[in-house]
């Protein structure tokens, strides 16, 4: 194990997979200079054939992945900010997510799209979205949102080796967060949530950028004598319904924390699943801590006001702890 920054873990994953399989190619706008640091240095190691700076043409970039992947390459596209998912949406939604089905499974599409999401840095409305659900809703593409360096590395490696399309959502502005990362080659499986701790009183479910505050809220509750089960969703599509249901049923009291706008969020999807599959175990309303249905303003206090926070997680936890049936 080594203490590693999130962005370094991602960079390591890319490097290791490019070393492992020469069919892996990477392209995107300024992937050489690497604005976030995640693709830094790859051009020096793998050269301009496999690492390509591109023009600003998101619609072509997303669609291109299909042609290259169907021709036998393992394609990594760096889309920079997650708001550009919208800019290149046709390729993602109308092509990547359904080309295999439409072909009657003639082809595999080993495509990984990387995009950095989230607010809190006064990047204003066009550089701060958390567009999990527009991609989750497509069906034909896996959606990953790691919260820590080890998972980021393990999930990205799985994504690249996966013969199906994956979008890898990188939590924006958290490249510096540090965690222990195994030294050996490892994969974090797609489709598995992680139960970070088990406690009998309340279940806190977080994902990606909200995981840290979720854990911190659990720590606070712990000090007050409230024991939390804490789940990191990690894979938003496919969702690990079994683990989520198990964790929710343990306590019957659930708070889901997701930076997406509330409407049709990952949090809402999880709540819907629980309200169906674990209904009998629920003891209190399922609470969602999400961003209200609003784009993020520039002014920091106005932006912060809308985003999930430890305080909001605790407030929601207190509601579910104090309402509903007792055990």
């Amino acid at each position, binding site marked *: 194990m080594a203490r590693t920054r999130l962005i370094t873990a991602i960079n390591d994953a890319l490097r290791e997979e490019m070393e492992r399989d020469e069919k892996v190619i990477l392209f995107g706008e300024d992937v050489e200079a690497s604005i976030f640091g995640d693709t830094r240095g790859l051009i020096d190691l793998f050269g301009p054939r496999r690492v390509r700076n591109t023009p600003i043409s998101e619609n072509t970039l997303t669609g291109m992945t299909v*042609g290259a992947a*169907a021709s036998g390459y393992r394609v990594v596209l760096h889309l920079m900010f997650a708001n550009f998912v919208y800019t290149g949406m046709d390729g993602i939604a109308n092509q990547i997510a359904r080309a295999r089905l439409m072909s009657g*499974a003639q082809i595999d599409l080993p495509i990984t799209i990387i995009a950095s999401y989230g607010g809190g840095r006064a990047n204003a409305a066009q550089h701060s979205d958390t567009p999990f659900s527009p991609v989750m809703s497509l069906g034909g593409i896996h959606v990953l949102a790691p919260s820590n360096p080890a998972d980021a590395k393990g999930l990205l490696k799985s994504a690249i080796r996966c013969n199906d399309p994956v979008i890898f959502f990188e939590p924006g502005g958290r490249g510096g967060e540090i965690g222990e990362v195994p030294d050996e080659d490892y994969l974090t499986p797609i489709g598995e949530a992680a139960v970070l701790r088990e406690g009998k009183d309340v279940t806190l479910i977080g994902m990606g950028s909200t995981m840290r505050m979720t854990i911190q809220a659990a720590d606070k509750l712990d000090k007050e004598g409230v024991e939390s089960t804490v789940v990191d969703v990690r894979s938003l599509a496919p969702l690990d319904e079994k683990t989520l249901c198990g964790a929710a049923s343990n306590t019957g009291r659930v708070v889901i924390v997701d930076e997406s706008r509330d409407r049709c969020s990952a949090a809402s999807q999880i709540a819907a699943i629980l309200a169906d599959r674990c209904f009998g175990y629920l003891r209190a309303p399922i609470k969602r801590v999400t961003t209200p249905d609003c784009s993020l303003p520039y002014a920091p206090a106005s932006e912060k006001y809308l985003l999930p926070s430890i305080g909001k997680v605790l407030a929601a936890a207190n509601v579910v702890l104090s309402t509903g049936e007792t055990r």
Partner: protein
Amino acid sequence: MKDNASPDLSQCLDLLRTMYLIRYTEEQLAEDFAAGKTPGGVHLSTGQEAVAAGICAHLTDQDQLASNHRGHGHFIAKGGDPKTLFAEIYGKSEGICRGMGGSMHVADYSKGIIGANGIVGAGLPISTGAALADLLDDDGSFTVCIFGDGASNQGVLQESFNFAALWKLPLLYVCEHNGFCQFSPAETVTAGTISDRAKAFGIPVKVVEEGNDVRAVWNAMAWASEYIRAGNGPAFIEARTYRINNHFEREHLVVQTPYRTREEVEKMRQERDPIIMLRQWMLNENLTDEKVLSAIDKEAARIIQESVAFGEAGTVPPENIGLEYMFAGTYN
């Protein structure tokens, strides 16, 4: 390469065969649609056969072809099996896409047919990626993207030009200019000359004014394929043709105001039928005789009838198969 390169006799007969196959396919599908035999709609390419035939004559199975919503002809010309085409359009398991795609999505990757597409213009990014793969493979094969005049107004065309020009992608653009974008005459929705758009990126261009003359298309393609295979980067062919059929076979039910005259269509049918044009030329030049030509005609008709029978005899896909085809579910 000589500018007057011309298909020899056997090549001409192949072109004729291909055009007949396409023609009979489309005529059959028009009937099938009217009879309610195709579950979904069809966009037919009757009258445009020369483009598909002339372009694909220069391609191997290693070369790739991305097509559009009007893709039956491209599929057949590129070597796709009409049997699997009919089975597909009839929605059968034996269809090339196992009945999952239908008319707008026919693809046979084993033949380099990387897909018709229901999103106008979407073949352009896809073939840009395919051509990138060709470049990396460096095996002399290249990718062709066929798209309509209407598709030319999707910005991805110019985005793709830029990639292809910058990276010298082995990519041929073929604009099948049939004069209409759905029900809009081209000049009402498309400014300037489409091939000029390619020139702005330094991409060399050939405009085939008579795109129904399969020999002219063949000739332009001889140039383009030689140019691209030599590693020079992308090229562009604009072929002027005409759509004889409706835009789609439901058209008469939905469009109440005519956007072209019956006379215009009739005139085209009579004067610019690519099959008649090629036959006529061969006879005029005394290259062959009616007997040979008619044998090709009959043979094509027979193949399509067999294909129809194959499609009809096909089985309905298992109801629950869609979810199974979504993902490979495998890892490398």
